[in-house]
């Protein structure tokens, strides 16, 4: 048993962090968020082609690096620190789902497209659309809200019903019958779109009896990915806050020397570090202990989300007036925190799910 990241994993982190510190600067993030409808396009291209981050965990036979989800988690965490608006999270979750369906018709070419640089998205609430097959041809219809980075993705993995059976489908977003409407977002670093499907052609990625499980598993992987992203954002937000507490002087001393603020920061650290441990543990289970994922995935998402919310909330307060300005980044973290919570259905729903899976309720 060893919890530490391997040397390779630590090196990966340093490489990604170094690249992002050079290129994903606050100005770049801000410009993409405010002007680019939530998409840092040119930087995304470099992350995908130069850094090859989206193919980290894809089979080497398909051109990927064949790493585990732990490596993907590291990249998610580092990107989370920057709040850079790129479709990394949905793309790697889609890649994970596709990899597990890789023996299935249609998954391999999609993975190859991700390796070649395509972004993908994933929408896992089966209630919004339904599909039917006729003579081997599948079409899907419905209106799917809150599709993450939909406007920048080539295709979507869609949880839905196919002839009344749960199934995971792939739909081309530029194809016939698919229409994407980008939405302005509360959290401008997160791009969302509404996807309207009118008899859009689709490919099924799951066997008839295995759809429900594949959807559930994709959701749990998404939860882990979200946890890692949140941990990165929370850590960065706390660092920025601590730096401000060092710099800002009132009453002739740095405000970080006031004990009431110190104790609150200590509590934030105590929220963050165990959430980090949980998120790391969860990333390991994706590949290392799939049986544990159903509990640990939502659990990691819950506690990482709580940590990010607590830290970003206090960050605004601890910054005082400046933390309430558009110009300062504190609000970006706070908005990311709240929108992450709202989009996962809220803390209560997550808790109930965990309680059910743990056999408590």
């Amino acid at each position, binding site marked *: 048993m060893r919890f530490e990241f391997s040397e390779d994993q630590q090196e990966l982190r340093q490489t990604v962090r170094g690249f992002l510190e050079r290129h994903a600067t606050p100005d770049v993030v801000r410009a993409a968020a405010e002007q680019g409808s939530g998409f840092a396009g040119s930087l995304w291209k470099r992350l995908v082609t130069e850094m090859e981050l989206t193919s980290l965990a894809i089979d080497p036979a398909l051109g990927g690096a064949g790493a585990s989800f732990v490596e993907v988690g590291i990249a998610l965490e580092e990107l989370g620190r920057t709040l850079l608006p790129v479709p990394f999270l949905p793309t790697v979750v889609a890649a994970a789902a596709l990899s597990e369906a890789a023996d299935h018709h249609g998954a391999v070419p999609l993975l190859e497209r991700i390796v070649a640089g395509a972004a993908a998205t994933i929408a896992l609430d089966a209630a919004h659309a339904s599909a039917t097959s006729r003579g081997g041809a599948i079409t899907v219809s419905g209106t799917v809200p809150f599709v993450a980075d939909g406007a920048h993705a080539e295709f979507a993995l869609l949880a839905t019903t196919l002839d009344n059976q749960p199934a995971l489908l792939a739909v081309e977003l530029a194809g016939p019958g698919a229409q994407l409407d980008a*939405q*302005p*977002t509360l959290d401008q670093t997160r791009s969302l779109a509404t996807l309207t499907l009118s008899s859009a052609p689709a490919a099924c990625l799951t066997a008839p009896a295995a759809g429900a499980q594949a959807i559930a598993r994709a959701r749990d992987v998404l939860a882990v990915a979200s946890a890692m992203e949140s941990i990165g954002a929370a850590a960065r937000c706390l660092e920025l806050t601590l730096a401000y507490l060092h710099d800002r002087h009132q009453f002739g001393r740095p405000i970080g020397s006031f004990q009431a603020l110190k104790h609150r920061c200590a509590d934030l650290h105590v929220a963050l570090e165990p959430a980090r441990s949980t998120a790391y543990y969860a990333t390991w289970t994706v590949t290392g202990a799939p049986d544990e994922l159903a509990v640990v995935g939502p659990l990691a998402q819950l506690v990482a989300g709580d940590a990010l919310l607590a830290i970003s909330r206090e960050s605004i*307060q601890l910054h005082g*007036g400046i933390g309430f300005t558009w110009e300062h980044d*504190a609000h970006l973290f706070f908005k990311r925190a709240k*929108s992450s919570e*709202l989009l996962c259905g809220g803390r209560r729903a997550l808790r109930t799910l965990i309680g059910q899976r743990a056999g408590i309720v």
Partner: protein
Amino acid sequence: MDLRYGVEDDDFRAEVREWLEQNLRGEFARLRGTGGSGREHEEIELRMAWERALGAAGWIGLGLPREWGGRSATLLQQVIFAEEYAKADAPGRVNHMGEHLLAPTLVTFGAITLQRRFLPGILRGEELWCQGYSEPGAGSDLAAVRTRALLEDGSWRIDGQKVWTSNAAFADWCFVLVRTEPGSERHRGLSYLLVPMRQPGIEVRPIVQITGTSEFSEVFFDGARTDASCIVGEAGDGWRVAMGTLGFERGVATLAQQIGFERELAHVLELARANGTIADPDISARIIDAWIELRVMRYHALRTLGSIEPGAASVSKLLWANWHRRLGELAIDVRGPGATTLTGTPYELDREQALFLFSRADTIYAGSNEIQRNIIADRVLGLPRR
């Protein structure tokens, strides 16, 4: 102890209600619900006209003595006016600073010439005021003020910067805390000046907030001028005057504010019923708690109405700021995932989104939670400073 209103209070209430009903009509009808915290940018021109209408009818400076143009109204009558005003959903007042902060300051500390010069403008709703206290380096620590003023050729010359100034964009005058003794430190050597806003030496830059709107501004003084007589109290006595300003409110606004809070909470409840989230035990518990706490705030405001005890204002501020911030979180949670997208660009917020974001400022401005806790610990609980 008797918590019933007297007959004279009921009569006064009827008079206020009647006037508001008769006057929030015609073009003023569309002012209902405009202005106020987080929406100071709405309908400015028409709200200025409304302020003049209030003044003409004698509803400004109610509590001031009749000799100053007020009504010598009791504290309870002031509460009744403010409550009825809020119940009518009448617009946010553009001259809160002038009426509630500067006017009593002039009455208490100002020279008679200053009172004669400035009170009528406030009471007629014709001269609007803003407050110049905070600076980039003097927020919680107000005594660190560095904006300086020197008497030159019969007038004050002012240089420096103020920040978090509400309504600076349309105010006519600003009451400013400045350092008039070069080299002085902390509370000493400060003065309280009255400075005209429309002059070349003053530049106002709006601060964009996390809502995307601008409630506050930075005010830059670069050789700004005001007449030598425009000083409240003696030179060097500014700290005492400024602190006096903070003690005048005595709970009237708190009770009126709660009418608006009730309306906001009712809206959240309505929304929770409409979208079914009221069935979520967590949401319903939070709504009931919010309702309970709002009642508690009311009882507490009634008990402490008129109190000049140290810390009374701090307790009140902590209560409402934390309550309102929690209401913002509740509102957005009732909205659910739909709250992650906006109604329009650029950054157009709906009611719950605006409440959620704007209420983050409640615990920061007008004395942060931290400052209020310091005041309570030191001045009410008497805990040792060191």
